[in-house]
């Protein structure tokens, strides 16, 4: 640590600015959060609630917000339904919530969750492209597989999924995971091909020849996989970002592969900086193996956060919440309870492992979100580690990602000069 008293005019080269995302779900991630005095549990199914949270996140200049989703009622059991009545149950479709708040925000990225196991990539592709049009370039999508057999029964059109919670490394579970994540990888490939299936400028409105579109700039994608085939082209023109952002959450082998092979942004759950290094190595290896070594794939660590200005107060609140819930809160992600300054220290320590940002899961909403935007963000800004104004109007722009070249565009095409016409031919 430098002892220099000088005000940091610019961050040191080692301290690149951090990216910050917030993960919104229900009344926050602690199961008792809905019982807190500031919580608004009766408003979970109103647009105003989500619009207010998005506005707060945008006031804090966060890069993006994610919205959790699933195709079944929430459950405390990872693979089966429960019948608890003391926790939040019920959820609105995340893509629609994102679209509903898009016209009310202007800079923050909007990344709803969608399930690849039971939905149609053609529908999701146009929905997220539309979210990108509606938000003028701020759309993303977090893809998620479903390993739950109650969700299989909600759709009634595929065989039960063979995952054993007690032993995810059993041959049956590994085969099941490979199937689900292989399908997700195909799904993302179809999304990206459909977004590219219209070249930029395909709409020509040429009154002289009577043509509205140049059909030479529309492309069949002809995807064939074991679970589905999609002919294309999309019904929706190429969205403003070219390709909206694709994100995924990963905890282990198969999911790391999906993140490295298919995603622009991976959310991971390291316990400590060493764990983060090991995870990053796996994601980067998958990225290299997929021939994407030169592309930027962001890796953000997920942390559940409880924040208070007074030292020790956050831990007290967490203990109180645990008591209300009747059980100590456990999470797949590391749980942090402390002051914004302590969290800033922790983020710096994690970032040194090579992470490019963080997805913070507020323990309670809107309380901990406000501690992030009004406590953590100013702290990071003081250290020169976070933006003081939005520097780009698109989500890709905020994350420093280029607008992808269109894989189908021909070298001779006269494209708007946003990207060099060196599109790789699709895999």
């Amino acid at each position: 640590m430098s002892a220099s008293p000088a005000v940091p005019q610019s961050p040191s080269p080692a301290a690149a600015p951090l990216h910050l995302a917030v993960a919104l779900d229900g009344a926050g991630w602690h199961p008792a959060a809905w019982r807190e005095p500031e919580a608004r549990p009766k408003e979970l199914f109103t647009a105003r609630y989500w619009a207010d949270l998005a506005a707060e996140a945008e006031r804090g200049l966060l890069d993006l917000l994610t919205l959790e989703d699933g195709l079944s009622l929430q459950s405390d059991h990872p693979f089966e339904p429960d019948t608890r009545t003391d926790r939040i149950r019920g959820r609105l479709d995340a893509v629609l919530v994102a679209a509903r708040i898009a016209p009310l925000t202007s800079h923050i990225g909007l990344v709803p969750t969608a399930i690849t196991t039971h939905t149609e990539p053609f529908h999701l592709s146009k929905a997220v492209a539309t979210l990108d049009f509606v938000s003028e370039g701020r759309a993303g999508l977090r893809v998620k597989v479903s390993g739950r057999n109650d969700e299989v029964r909600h759709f009634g059109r595929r065989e039960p999924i063979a995952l054993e919670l007690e032993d995810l490394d059993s041959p049956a579970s590994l085969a099941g995971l490979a199937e689900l994540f292989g399908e997700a990888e195909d799904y993302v490939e179809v999304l990206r091909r459909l977004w590219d299936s219209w070249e930029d400028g395909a709409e020509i409105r040429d009154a002289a020849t009577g043509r509205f579109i140049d059909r030479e700039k529309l492309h069949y994608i002809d995807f064939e996989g074991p679970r589905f085939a999609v002919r294309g082209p999309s019904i929706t023109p190429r969205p403003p970002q070219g390709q909206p952002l694709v994100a995924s959450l990963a905890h282990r082998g198969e999911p790391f592969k999906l993140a490295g092979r298919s995603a622009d942004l991976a959310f991971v759950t390291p316990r400590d900086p060493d764990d983060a290094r090991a995870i990053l190595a796996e994601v980067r290896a998958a990225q290299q193996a997929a021939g994407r070594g030169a592309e930027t794939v962001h890796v953000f660590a997920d942390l559940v956060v409880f924040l208070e200005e007074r030292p020790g107060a956050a831990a007290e609140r967490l203990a109180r919440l645990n008591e209300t819930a009747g059980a100590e809160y456990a999470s797949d992600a590391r749980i942090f309870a402390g002051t914004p300054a302590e969290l800033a220290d922790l983020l710096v320590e994690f970032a040194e492992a090579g992470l490019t940002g963080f997805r913070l899961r507020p323990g309670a909403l809107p309380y901990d979100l406000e501690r992030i935007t009004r406590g953590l963000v100013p702290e990071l800004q003081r250290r020169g580690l976070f933006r003081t104004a939005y520097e780009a109007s698109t989500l890709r722009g905020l994350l420093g990602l280029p607008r992808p070249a269109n894989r189908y565009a021909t070298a001779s095409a006269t494209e708007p000069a946003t990207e060099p016409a060196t599109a790789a031919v699709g895999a």
Partner: protein
Amino acid sequence: MSNENSSGGDKPLKRIHLAAHFPGVNNTTVWSDPQAGSQIAFSSFAHLARTAERAKFDFLFLAEGLRLREQNGLIYDLDVVGRPDTFAVLAALAAVTDRLGLAGTINSTFNEPYEVARQFASLDHLSAGRSAWNVVTSWDAFTGENFRRGGFLREEDRYDRARQFLEASWQLFDSWRGDEVVADPVSGTFLGDPDAGRFAYRSSEFDIAGRFDVPRAPQGRPVIFQAGDSEQGREFAAASADAIFSRHGTLDAGKAFYTDVKGRLARYGREPGSLKILPAVTFVLGDTDADAREKAEVVRRQQVSGQTAIRLLEQVWNRDLSDHDPEGPLPAADPLIGEHTVAQGRASVRMNRDPLALAREWRALAEAKNLSIRDLVIEVSGRQSFVGTPARVAEEMNRFVQEDASDGFILAPHLTPGGLDEFADTVVPLLQERGVFRTEYEGSTLREHLDLPTARTTVPQEAI
């Protein structure tokens, strides 16, 4: 208040329902006009929605497409192509409007009930009770090539699936009564019923069970629209729909359709007012009736270019006619009959069941009136339903409704997105003066705007 009742007698005046159709992907949209804007930018949707809400319309309607049309094996390039996702646009429009109903087409063939029901229930929550679902069916393998299950449905099975899809969706919507979310922080009870959302539905198309994850929406379920015109379609609507999006734009055809469909309701235990009949119509306004007729002619020729006329003729002739002069006579050869079709993804193609007879009829018409290909296509394809001064159009529309040719109209302007502005500013005030159209929204939900009965809560069907 002396001239409003054109139907005479002591029958009370019916209130007119009005909706706006976002100009779709077909040759009724004039994209070549200098005033034509984007059909994909959100600002276009927001403009039309705000205009419709300013005029106190019942709802805005969005159509859907799931595969780009083809003709002669090539993507059709003459009309507006490219549209957004129905749900995402309607959800975004809920943010820029307060009362306007938000109606969209969602296909029952290439979707699954659990997902569609949670999308509509979500939209209804996010719009505080303004959602409507136009249930359509599809059967062609051509569209199916974009989906997991492909073209698996036989044409004759499509209404079976649609009916079962709706039944399954109602099971899902009604699996929450509406009082389950207690959210009492003191007692720690979030859900008042541990079985909230439980459902089971089994039929020839679906075998689903479990728990639905969206609590009961403000309208209970979305308002249901139906658009088919076949015998099966009419019966389906009489049994299940809240409104019909019909094609019958003339007074006599409208009356016949109205009488037929309303007459079917009793056998399902329904009142005539529980199903609204709303034809899709077009309009052209002018300072004088003659001026409007002249403008309408110009619009028709913009809608049907020479190339468009040839392509439309090809859809009946089922062969390549690109070497024909649109200003010349109809083809001497007869239409090709057989499995092969030059046009894919176009509903109208399927309706040309007897192309040989149609070609004979058109030849006779062209000969009698000395029409070129383009003139003929303009003559036989749809024309503007209401043409005239705002006063004339208001009077005509009111007459349609008071004489039971419809309960109102879904207006499809030919310009995106400003095509409704003049109507909102000139015709709507005249309808309001006549006391046949609202001057303020009385209710907050679309079901209230349409004077529809509250959605019934069905008793969940036992698992079979």
